[in-house]
């Protein structure tokens, strides 16, 4: 009961600020929270990254295994993306098999990577029709302060860029870096009345979860879109989202790249 009243008050407050042209944390409508990307934090994984988007934190680990290719793509590696919304990350997550939210999260992140052809899957063929590399991308949410989607997509591509294919351990040649050839960025916005708020934080989502995620590649092409949430989106708003998301992705891609370039293989401060 008390919780409901608190939620109501929070929602009213958030809405009144938005209508006054402001966000509760002082950001501009098209402004992301501070981004931190640390790669290589899980030595036992073939690749890994911890992404912080404000207080939202996601770890992605990449593991490689050898398996059989799908019959219709005998010369291509396989991507398997999985998300666990472990109950550690939010009071609303419960232990158990993946629910529709974690499935959607994994599938939208997967589509961004797959459709941008971020991984050159042909280079992951070991023996056509027999053996190919399987890339397991495991998304592990640690703290859900909103927009797990974009944080997960960033952590996934950063972890992939950090991945070394363990060919020696599997006795199929020499280790080599995973061939990553694009850097898709997903931009999620919250639609509130006629306003679009990129990178919504948890408190902002008290007004509802009217979300749109648009992922684009280096060339500024759209590679994945997902309307998520029970709402109706006016057509003109969608075109606005489209422009905004592709432009914003360019900016965020630069930030991510510079963070990855800095290295970040710095176990010492990964939690500070």
């Amino acid at each position: 009961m008390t919780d409901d009243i608190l939620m109501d008050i929070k929602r009213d407050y958030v809405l009144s600020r938005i209508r006054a042209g402001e966000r509760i944390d002082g950001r501009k409508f098209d402004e992301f929270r501070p981004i931190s990307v640390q790669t290589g934090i899980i030595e036992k994984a073939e690749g890994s990254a911890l992404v912080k988007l404000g207080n939202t934190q996601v770890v992605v680990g990449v593991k490689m295994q050898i398996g059989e290719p799908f019959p219709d793509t005998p010369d291509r590696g396989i991507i398997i993306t999985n998300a666990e919304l472990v109950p550690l990350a939010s009071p609303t997550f419960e232990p158990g098999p993946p629910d529709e939210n974690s499935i959607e999260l994994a599938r939208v992140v997967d589509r961004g990577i797959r459709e941008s052809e971020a991984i050159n899957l042909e280079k992951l063929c070991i023996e056509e029709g027999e053996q190919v590399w399987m890339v397991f991308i495991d998304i592990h949410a640690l703290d859900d302060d909103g927009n797990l989607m974009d944080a997960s997509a960033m952590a996934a591509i950063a972890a992939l860029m950090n991945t070394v294919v363990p060919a020696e351990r599997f006795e199929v040649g020499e280790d080599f870096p995973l061939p990553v050839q694009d850097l898709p960025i997903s931009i999620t916005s919250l639609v509130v009345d006629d306003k679009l708020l990129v990178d919504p934080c948890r408190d902002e989502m008290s007004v509802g979860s009217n979300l749109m995620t648009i992922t684009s590649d280096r060339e500024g092409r759209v590679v994945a879109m997902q309307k998520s949430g029970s709402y109706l989106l006016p057509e003109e708003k969608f075109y606005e989202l489209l422009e905004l998301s592709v432009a914003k992705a360019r900016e965020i891609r630069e930030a991510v790249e510079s963070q990855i370039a800095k290295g970040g293989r710095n176990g010492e401060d990964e939690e500070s």
Partner: protein
Amino acid sequence: MEKPKLIVDGKRLDGRGFEELRPIKIEAGVLKRADGSCYLEMGKNKIIAAVYGPREVHPRHLQDPSKAVIRYRYNMAPFSVEERKKPGPDRRSVEISKVSREALEPVIMKELFPRSGIDVFVEVLQADAGTRTACLNAASVALIDAGVAMRGMITAVAVAKVDGQLVLDPMKEEDNYGEADVPIAFLIRNGRIEAIALLQMDGRLTLEETRRAIELAKKGVMQIYKLQREAIMRKYMREGEDYEGSAEAAEVAKELSENEGGSEKEGGQSEQEVKE
């Protein structure tokens, strides 16, 4: 498998033009037990939708005291695809069920049915690309057939990019080998497209192509919308009964009475207008 050429001499593999839909067949009220139902074919897709409710929700803690709880279950029959599908939900069908439910939720007048549940169950008996949009089209008709009050009709279609060309309503080969797939659903009300209810995309499109895909989808759904309405009208004429509650049904009925001389239901219609 080698990618086949998908456009030959300016025509698609099945002879269609770029902006042409596959043959569509819609029939409302095909099941006895369900409160509303619809059978729909779109190309080789064969879809059956059923609506139960508004009805009581069990267990009680799943009830919402302020509005109806909507469930949507997209399910593929094991024999609906080339390789037998293991029965039961997989990750794909869980995601489709989620976005489809979210497309219908803002359109159903949930607040009229506190504490109750409205269940939309859709079975894909045969799949041939575009099942999620075909299912939404069937679900929408089944909801109206069940007399569930709605703010309008949900009508959906997919657009694909194949061999560099945007095409409407891709069939299987175009879906498998195409460069992009955009399933999209609109709310249509009084014959006018009002908003986007479902939108997903995977593939690779420029901004400009994305915009054109939406425009192409809009052309497609207006044709499908007409067929949805006709299916409801046929059922209505067959039964000579009033479809209560739904704005869409009321509109259909009004049109019917105006265009086709039916008159005995006019009183009821204005009531429905008010209700909406």
